[in-house]
């Protein structure tokens, strides 16, 4: 990619060069170059459109920036911390007063690969069920004070050395440690996780601690979906022995450790698939697109 074009633009459509293509894709350089050229053109278009829209909305955003002054920069109009740019933020809300550039959030974009026929795509999109993220509040905390003065906190030092705090919107749980580090779990999307972490930081701030919002990072994403046909797990473990672990005496599902991307899938006889271990949303989508043709192969009974 040429410099100057932000690789991690939030408006990047799903299926561009960052997400590796399905298995049947060719690796020919010409197609890659063509993709890159298409991406560059699109991004330039996006950039121009974004700038136009953002200028209109800049007043409302600067007000927001001033309010959240203690939180980490960059908080500009297109501001998202670098880690989030990996995620395919199709659920990004349009800025106030602007029209969305892309249609409804949950439809995946078809990959820009001339070689891949449309029938290869499974048409099923895994739903994200849980996001685990961490953030550093940047100051030492007194957990007893927090537990005393917050309504939604529980603290039992004999059981666990952290305060467990919960908020209702987004419905999440946070573990707040005395070192100032915090773990936020239970959100259904990256943005919700970030918003929830900011709310916890704000609560801690209001309790009198100089909390900041440093190094927000998504650590794990869990998704699930249903292929809607039964799967012969015994067959799958025979053909994919080096990746699969199926012990019906211990657990009813098959544990499939995919190498690329590095995702663990739990595959059940009912056709439900749980994908976990992803740091970005695209890994989950990619892993499912990789496993779907394999599962289809086990659809027919003998």
């Amino acid at each position: 990619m040429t410099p100057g074009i932000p690789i991690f633009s939030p408006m990047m459509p799903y299926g561009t060069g960052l997400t590796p293509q399905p298995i049947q894709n060719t690796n020919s350089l010409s197609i890659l170059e063509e993709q890159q050229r298409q991406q560059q053109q699109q991004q330039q278009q996006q950039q121009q459109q974004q700038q136009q829209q953002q200028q209109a909305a800049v007043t409302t955003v600067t007000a927001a920036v001033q309010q959240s002054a203690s939180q980490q920069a960059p908080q500009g109009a297109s501001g998202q911390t670098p880690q989030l740019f990996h995620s395919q933020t199709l659920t990004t809300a349009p800025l106030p007063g602007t029209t969305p550039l892309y249609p409804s959030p949950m439809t995946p974009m078809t990959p820009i690969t001339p070689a891949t026929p449309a029938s290869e795509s499974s048409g099923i999109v895994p739903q994200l069920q849980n996001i685990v993220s961490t953030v550093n509040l940047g100051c030492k905390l007194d957990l007893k004070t927090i537990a005393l003065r917050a309504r939604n906190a529980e603290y039992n030092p004999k059981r666990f050395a952290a305060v467990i705090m919960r908020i209702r919107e987004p419905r999440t749980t946070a573990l707040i440690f005395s070192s100032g580090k915090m773990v936020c779990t239970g959100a259904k999307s990256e943005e919700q996780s970030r918003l929830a972490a900011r709310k916890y930081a704000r609560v801690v701030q209001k309790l009198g601690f100089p909390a900041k919002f440093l190094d927000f990072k998504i650590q794990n994403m869990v998704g699930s979906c249903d292929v809607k046909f039964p799967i012969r797990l015994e067959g799958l473990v025979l053909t994919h022995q080096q990746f699969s672990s199926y012990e019906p005496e211990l657990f009813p599902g098959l544990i499939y450790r995919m190498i690329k991307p590095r995702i663990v899938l739990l595959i059940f006889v009912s056709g439900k698939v749980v994908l976990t271990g992803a740091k970005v949303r695209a890994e989950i989508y990619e892993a499912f697109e990789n496993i779907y043709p394999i599962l289809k192969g086990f659809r027919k009974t003998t």
Partner: protein
Amino acid sequence: MPGGGRCPDCGSTELVEDAHYSQSQLVCSDCGCVVTEGVLTTTFSDEGNLREVAYSRSTGENEQVTRSQQRGLRRVRDLCRVLQLPSTFEDTAVAYYQKAYQHPGIRAARLQKKEVLVGCCVLITCRQHNWPLTMGTICTLLYADLDMFSGTYMQIVKLLGLDVPSLCLADLVKTYCSSFKLFQASPSLPAKYMEDKEKMLSRTLQLVELADETWLVTGRHPLPVITAAAFLAWQSLQPSARLTCSLARFCKLANVDLPYPASSRLQELLAVLLRMAEQLAWLQVLKLDKRSVVKHISDLLQHRHTLIRKAFREGTLEVEALEKELQGRGPGQGQGKEEVGNSASELPEGKRPASPALLLPPCMLKPPKRVCPAPPASTVTGDENISDSEIEQYLRTPQEVRDFLRAQAAGQAATSNPNPP
């Protein structure tokens, strides 16, 4: 004569190095004053090469077999002998144990884990030679918890990078059924309950194969299915005498434990057999139920391949949902799909074989326990304003804090003074 040294007493420069026993001393030869003394003990820095090192950090551990490793290897051999495994298995299991022991995580593990590791090595060896050994058996022999066993087993398979084949179902059936105490007359076994081993084995195998084909085995523990199949096989070989015997009593007679899921597996297997029976013309008229179908198991097994094909059809949940919807619209319309297929047979409605059921695992046929609505598409950006009022709802007011502290103090006073005067 060392240069520059003067005796502090007399000021002479005549200093001699002398040794008083093992202690070196510098003595003035004029007045006999001891100027300096050597130290009797060595310093920490002197002892650099002589310092004591913990055994776990020395290489001695790698050179010789530690006592706990020796104990573990003995346990492996003992376990192989108790299970009456061939001698080649013993050597393989011992090799796996030694290999596992080289990893620091295993070497420093608790004794409980090392004990369970013995079982894991034996299990892996048996699996690789297709010797049917269940984890339950090993856990019983080692008095180990299945959770502990499963954790160690998964860890060691990953650590050693092993390919462990699945449990061989046919061999397990043979081994498990052979352990039933039904094949020889005994005072506790009524004569009519005694059975021929070969006949029972072959019929149990056929029933287990039937269960496998109809999705009753995938994802489930194999042993309850085998128990249910063995019970049905035994019953069907002499139904008149044995229909009154329950599954629990059968297991007691055979001197095996009744696994908890076996009764639901039995019901599932009977449901499959009933569906198959509906496809046989001479059985349709009998209007079989769960007890009477046992008498006809031999017929059903004889034609099982055809019957399964006729009684079941492949489907997915979507097809099923669609059909349920059609049925909901009108009872006549609902049978439309099947009727079209069966119209060629030209049999009157009552005698027509039942419409094929969907061949799906039971978990897909049962209605979902709770409906999980898809979450609404959220338009959160992560950068929204957070209003103060929203945060304040999570903070206690000063009054609440005071009340809470008071209540806490009262509670502590109560516990510290359990017998107030």
